């Protein structure tokens, strides 16, 4: 019998359906802070038996990595971590043809589906660490090894939304940022209005340098999850609008809690 798990990530209500009791139970534990009971579902992810005979044959080579999206007349076919799947044109309904994929694959798939869904609805998932300090949301953006986890570990009493993936989406006219439950760490289901964005680089000194809107939009765009050429223009527009709403900085930093927050507070005081 099919099992349904309902979750709420960034106010997007998602249902994940699977025949695997074990998988559903694992997901329920992983998403404990994100469980929902609403029937007002926006995004459906259906994990089914692997009958892919009806899918058009596609050639995948090693260079394509773990993810590839193909545009079809009635939606998209995708390749994801060794499995095939289908997504409808509005990115509201996904089918993954797999018996019992690992929980990691399903969590990554949830990120992919959410990323595609948000790309049509003024939202984006960023490789970032989100920290809330006295109701001010700070987004620290950077690739792997750029220092997101270091910044999170130096947050002190401030609230960390995530040290890996942050969702920014427009809600009721304002941008809000949310923690995305990702593979590495699970933080609570929190949110805040972003106040400023910092593009991270570990260095031997502290330096905050103001960026133009175009510079910051490109940096934000290049740090999004799951690049997708079909939506790139739309996502760039969103990045420009986000970066035009708040100051953005290149942040060279040393792992010193006092120095980091002193400099951030100084520059935010000067710009407000």
């Amino acid at each position, binding site marked *: 019998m099919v099992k349904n798990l309902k979750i709420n990530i960034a106010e997007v209500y998602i249902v994940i359906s699977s025949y695997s009791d074990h998988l559903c139970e694992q997901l329920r534990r992983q998403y404990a802070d994100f469980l929902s009971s609403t029937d007002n579902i926006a995004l459906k992810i259906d994990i089914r038996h692997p009958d892919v005979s009806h899918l058009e044959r596609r050639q995948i080579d090693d260079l394509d990595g773990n993810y590839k999206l193909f545009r079809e007349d009635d939606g998209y076919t995708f390749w994801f971590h060794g499995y095939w799947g289908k997504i409808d044109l509005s990115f509201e309904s996904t089918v993954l043809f797999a018996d019992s994929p690992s929980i990691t694959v399903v969590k990554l798939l949830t990120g992919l589906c959410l990323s595609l869904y948000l790309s049509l609805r003024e939202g984006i998932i960023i490789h970032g660490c989100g920290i809330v300090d006295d109701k001010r949301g700070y987004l620290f953006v950077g690739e792997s090894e750029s220092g997101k986890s270091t910044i999170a570990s130096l947050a002190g009493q401030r609230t960390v939304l995530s040290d890996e993936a942050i969702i920014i989406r427009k809600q009721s006219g304002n941008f809000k940022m949310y923690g995305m439950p990702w593979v590495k760490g699970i933080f609570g289901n929190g949110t805040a209005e972003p106040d400023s964005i910092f593009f991270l680089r570990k260095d031997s000194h502290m330096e905050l340098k103001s960026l133009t*809107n*175009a510079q910051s939009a*490109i940096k934000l765009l290049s740090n999004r999850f799951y690049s997708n*050429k079909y939506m*790139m223009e739309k996502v*760039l527009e969103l990045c420009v609008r986000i970066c035009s709403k708040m100051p953005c900085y290149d942040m060279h930093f040393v792992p010193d809690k006092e120095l980091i927050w002193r400099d951030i507070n100084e520059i935010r005081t000067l710009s407000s």
Partner: protein
Amino acid sequence: MKYEHCPVKIDELAWRKVDDEGIILDMANDQAHILNEVAIEMWNLMDGNNSIQDISENICKEYEVEMEQALKDTMEFAGKLFEKGLIH
């Protein structure tokens, strides 16, 4: 590239202005590039109808630079775009 060449943008890209700068989106290669004010002017003229010479003359008039310098800058910019596969 010769001065008589008329550069033209490839199909699979988009571009937009943001304040005084421009952003080129190279959808095929999943990359974005930033343009300054002068580069935007050059980029706009790369429509297949203007040669490097024509573009340089325009830059000469608009920004009051010597023709020699304008030609050098336009050639350099077009060369970079060509290397990145953004123009033919």
